[in-house]
């Protein structure tokens, strides 16, 4: 018993040492074990430097994958080889064991299993589960089980609670098994589970071309939304500082079960119309003369692939001849219509009947073929003479039309050569350059004139007033600090600078007598001149003397100066 346990222990120790040894020599990693078809996997092979003949290392053949070498580098005592591998098919595949030889000893890695799917399930749920996301996209069709050529609506719906920076851009799949008409978009806000969502929908009409389980590949929506800073309480700042986040989402693939049309009961005149249709026929005139054209209009309207409908057979009596048929197609909302307008020429007089036109379609609701018919139309042909501009000729019948429908050839052509695309002629741009230069020159000239015409005296006075107020403000600050010298210095300067700017004389260096005599030349009241003189005397007296003034006195001087400057501004 003891011997047996010992043997097991030895075997286990040997096994562990082999694994450890193998790990040291050869390691193989794969970044994913489940992958979408067409997506890349990275295979990493680490081999110890101790191995000889490393340059002869090669990956085993992997027929289920496309293998491309990516990067080879050294890390410590290991050589690392990386490869991009892409699966070719859906299913379970295995990356075979990788073998390296160390001195005639074979070291083998374990094979790695990979699951390749068409679409990853987790991705599908994350895009459609709105409880986890504030932004999601889904694709759906209005009917899941349909017949070949039956009309369905494929809707790609994108919803978000975020504010978008721009409209979402969408990429629809190829719809390889369908006939597709143009897509329509609509957007707006919707209340979903009590919350306001911006919803953007792309609706496409599709008509399946083959039966079986048909898969519509996922659509893709790319958006740019605004992410606000939650810390900032200011709404305006929030909007300004919002970050633009780019986001790309794939919708879920959609599976449609398409049934073939039943062979039993298929009418002979069935041309492939599936849906619900109605047919009407009418003529423009019910009483005509022989050879007078009648316009017969057959209109088919319904909710199917209108392009698949060809002109229904019109079985006319032998004494009536049918010419060209013009086809008009119209699509409005859920219904499509096709109008066949034919020209009929009656050849013999009498009361004639244009027989009803038959049309067959397959109704997917009742699951049976329906044959509908228009009413017979009675036309009275009388034996008059129909005067036409140009007679109907055989050549016109060949062109499948009647001759009066086309305007005749022009024989009096003036041999005048018309210019080819003048818009592509660069000469126009060169010719315009001097005119633009003239416009710029005149604009610059006007701006210069306006600049020159500005009132310089007024500007000077304005600048002086501003400067004077600045010194007055300095004086106020000095008054608060009870700095007498600075206060009177600023007051003195404030008055002198303003007077200088208004009168254009050098008042800074004038003595008070000169100022007085100068001011008398202007229309300034005597009392104001006296006030100015008094303040200037105060300034001279208190600025440089040891006589101390009170704060009250300074306040009084400040008020007076302010009053004087305001009064002078009005007068000068």
């Amino acid at each position, binding site marked *: 018993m003891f011997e047996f346990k010992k043997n097991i222990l030895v075997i286990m120790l040997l096994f562990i040492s082999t694994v450890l040894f193998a790990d040291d020599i050869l390691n193989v990693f794969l970044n994913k074990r489940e992958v979408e078809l067409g997506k890349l996997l990275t295979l990493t092979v680490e081999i110890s430097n101790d191995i000889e003949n490393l340059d002869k290392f090669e990956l085993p053949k992997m027929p289920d994958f496309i293998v491309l070498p990516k990067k080879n580098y050294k890390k410590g005592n290991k050589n690392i080889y990386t490869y991009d591998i892409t699966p070719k098919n859906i299913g379970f595949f295995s990356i075979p064991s990788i073998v390296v030889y160390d001195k005639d000893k074979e070291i083998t890695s374990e094979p790695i299993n990979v699951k390749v799917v068409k679409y990853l399930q987790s991705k599908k749920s994350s895009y459609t589960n709105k409880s986890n996301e504030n932004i999601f996209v889904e694709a759906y069709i209005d009917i899941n089980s349909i017949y070949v050529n039956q009309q369905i609506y494929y809707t790609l719906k994108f919803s978000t609670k975020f504010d978008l920076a721009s409209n979402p851009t969408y990429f629809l799949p190829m719809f390889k098994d369908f006939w*597709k008409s143009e897509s329509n978009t609509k957007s707006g806000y919707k209340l979903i589970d009590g919350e306001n969502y911006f919803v953007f929908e792309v609706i496409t009409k599709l008509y399946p071309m083959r039966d079986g389980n048909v898969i519509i590949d996922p659509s893709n929506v790319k958006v740019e939304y605004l992410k606000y800073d939650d810390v900032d309480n200011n709404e305006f700042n929030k909007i300004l500082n919002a970050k633009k986040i780019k986001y790309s989402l794939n919708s879920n693939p959609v599976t449609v079960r398409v049934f073939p049309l039943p062979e039993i009961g298929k009418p002979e005149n069935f041309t492939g119309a599936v849906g619900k249709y109605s047919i009407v026929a009418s003529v423009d005139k019910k009483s005509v003369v022989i050879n007078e054209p009648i316009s017969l209009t057959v209109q088919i309207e319904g909710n199917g692939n209108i392009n698949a409908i060809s002109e229904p057979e019109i079985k006319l009596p032998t004494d009536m001849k049918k010419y060209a048929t013009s086809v008009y197609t119209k699509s409005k909302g859920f219904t499509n219509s096709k109008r066949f307008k034919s020209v009929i020429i009656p050849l013999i007089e009498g009361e004639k009947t244009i027989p009803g036109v038959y049309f067959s379609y397959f109704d997917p609701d009742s699951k049976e073929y329906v044959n509908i018919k228009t009413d017979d139309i009675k036309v009275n042909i009388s034996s008059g003479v129909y005067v036409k501009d140009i007679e109907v000729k055989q050549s016109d019948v060949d062109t499948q039309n009647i001759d009066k429908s086309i*305007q005749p050839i022009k024989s009096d052509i003036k041999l005048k050569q018309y210019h080819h695309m003048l818009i592509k002629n660069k000469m126009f741009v060169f010719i315009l350059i001097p005119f633009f230069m003239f416009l710029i020159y005149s604009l610059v000239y006007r701006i210069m004139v306006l600049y020159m015409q500005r009132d310089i005296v007024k500007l000077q006075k304005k600048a002086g007033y501003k400067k004077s107020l600045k010194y007055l403000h300095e004086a106020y600050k000095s008054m608060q600090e009870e700095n007498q010298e600075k206060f009177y210095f600023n007051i003195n300067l404030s008055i002198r600078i303003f007077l200088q700017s208004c009168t254009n004389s050098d008042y800074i260096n004038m003595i008070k007598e000169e100022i007085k005599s100068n001011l008398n030349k202007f229309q300034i009241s005597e009392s104001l001149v006296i006030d100015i003189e008094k303040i200037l005397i105060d300034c001279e007296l208190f600025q440089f003397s040891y006589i101390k003034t009170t704060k009250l006195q300074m306040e009084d001087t400040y008020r007076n100066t302010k009053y004087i400057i305001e009064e002078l501004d009005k007068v000068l």
Partner: protein
Amino acid sequence: MNKVLIIFLLFFSLIPIYANVPTQEQLSQSLESYQNGVYENSIKEYELMILNGFNNPYIYYNLSNSYYRNNDIGRASLNIERALRLAPRDKDIQYNRNFIAQLSGEPEQNIAEHIVSKLQLILSLNELVIIVFLLTIILCISIGIYFLKQKRFFLNISIICLVLFSLNAGLLCLKAYNEVILEEAIVLSDTQVKNKPIKNEDGAFSVLAGRKVIVLSELGRWVNIKLSVDGFSGWIDKNSIEKI
């Protein structure tokens, strides 16, 4: 003022026109062929004139008529469209264009499309280019003189010119978008349009000869087209269409 006029006339005379203008004799020959029902000869004559660089809407019009008589609705439509681009106000050209469009199964336009197409029939692209060019010059001169002389008369001229310029420039943009930027083509023969650019792919829908389509992209010998008016799109062989 006379000098300015002379400069303008000189400028327009300098715009290169490389063409061999056909003689009256050639024109009479092609007319005679047409009247005798030998449409192949008439087509050859007109095509030769165009090949020599002669660009005239009425040559295109007559060529379209010849093709129509020769049961070639596709080329009849192509040439009538070319004629309409050069002479959009000509009633006969308009009539024949509408008639051939009906034959080629073009659906009726809605009101907006109808208004846009009517607007495009006011002036040709070349006429619009010249009008916008002249208005730009007058506008530059009148605004410039107003800035220099400050006379109200020039301000009034500038305002009138600006209004006219805006209208014409808008129309020019519309025309240029449709005729230069948007690549329009004509289907030359009844063709199946496919969902994919693959030879063995089943046809998605068919288009009749003469139908106007918009070229979206090209891939080898395949062209991705969109039907004008009803907007269905698909792939078509490159040889089955010709750009207008």
